[in-house]
């Protein structure tokens, strides 16, 4: 089990030109605290939608790696999205699940991954060519090249401790988050 902020820092240190989408709750707080960037799109709601926002972005920007960082509860709400992504096979999409086996924002109730549900196995069964689980710093380090360079879609479950690091509230206004992202990615086209 890894510290979630250490894991996010290790993942995003190597992001290069990757575009990042975060799922609501802790993954949004983690990414904003560790590596804010206009190339990050933060979700504060729309539970179950993060991976598919990443799919739409990956199809629209085939030359860029798209990295979705989300939580186990968030992905469990949109499990059908694994089937949709598996069927579409976007080669430039990677999904990282920061899996604390808890619903962290609502009182740390056990999620289904604490009770035997294996998200990496589900992703493989849905057609992801690469899906694995990392529970140590060494395993995470070994998984990073595939996350950024492997033929996607890639899913990486990172087992993290059920801690709640201090929340540094990131950008809140959705329209601003969207416009900041589009201006950074598309330049003058963004207003068109």
């Amino acid at each position, binding site marked *: 089990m890894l510290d979630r902020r250490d894991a996010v820092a290790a993942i995003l240190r190597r992001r290069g030109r990757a*575009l990042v*989408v975060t799922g609501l709750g802790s993954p949004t707080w983690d990414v904003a605290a560790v590596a804010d960037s206009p190339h990050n*799109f933060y*979700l*504060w*709601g*729309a*539970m*179950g*939608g*993060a991976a*598919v*926002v*990443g*799919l*739409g*972005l*990956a*199809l*629209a*920007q085939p030359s860029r790696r798209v990295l979705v960082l989300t939580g186990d509860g968030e992905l469990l709400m*949109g499990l*059908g*999205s694994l*089937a*949709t992504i598996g*069927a*579409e096979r976007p080669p430039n999409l990677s999904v990282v699940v920061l899996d604390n086996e808890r619903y962290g924002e609502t009182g740390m109730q056990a999620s289904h991954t604490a009770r035997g549900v294996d998200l990496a196995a589900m992703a493989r069964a849905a057609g992801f060519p690469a899906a694995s689980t990392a529970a140590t710093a060494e395993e995470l380090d070994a998984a990073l090249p595939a996350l950024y360079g492997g033929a996607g879609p890639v899913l990486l479950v990172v087992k993290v401790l059920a801690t709640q690091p201090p929340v540094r509230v990131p950008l809140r206004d*959705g*329209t601003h*988050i*969207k416009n900041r*992202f*589009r201006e950074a*990615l*598309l330049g003058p*086209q*963004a207003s068109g």
Partner: protein
Amino acid sequence: MDESQPVWSQYIYQALKEAEIGQVAYVPDAGHKDLIELCHADARMRTVSLTTEEEGVALLAGAWLGGTRGVLLMQSSGVGNCINMLSLVEECRFPLLMIVTMRGQWGETNPWQVPMGQAAAAVLATCGVIVQHVEATRDLAPGVAAAAQMAFVSNRAVALLVSQRLIGAKKFD
């Protein structure tokens, strides 16, 4: 039903081409059958088959982040599946173009289609989606063009509800 589906689906397809739609997300519906086939055959349209309609709302938000316009095709029963995901569109002012083929509205013979069909327009409006109705095939092309313009230029969610009277009621009797 004044023209057959292969004919009026062409009107929608041509209007989507003119609106430069690059991603077509759908949950299959008999009313959209020909349109889905036209979009699949078009190399400039990326079709994405969804497991549930709410995925399409999120997908097209991602497409817009990446500079691509999309359309979401569904039947009226799918509207209810979209409710919470529409908060993404409302809060972020994402453009969203939805074309909804209606069931439970005009001569319906499957009673299970009636509740969501009757609720669809009110549900969409409650979630901040601008609802526009098409009752005749002659209004399809201008209806799609106007909805697309409002969606992508004014950054709004617009749903075009295609009447069951236009599509023709499927017979279960």
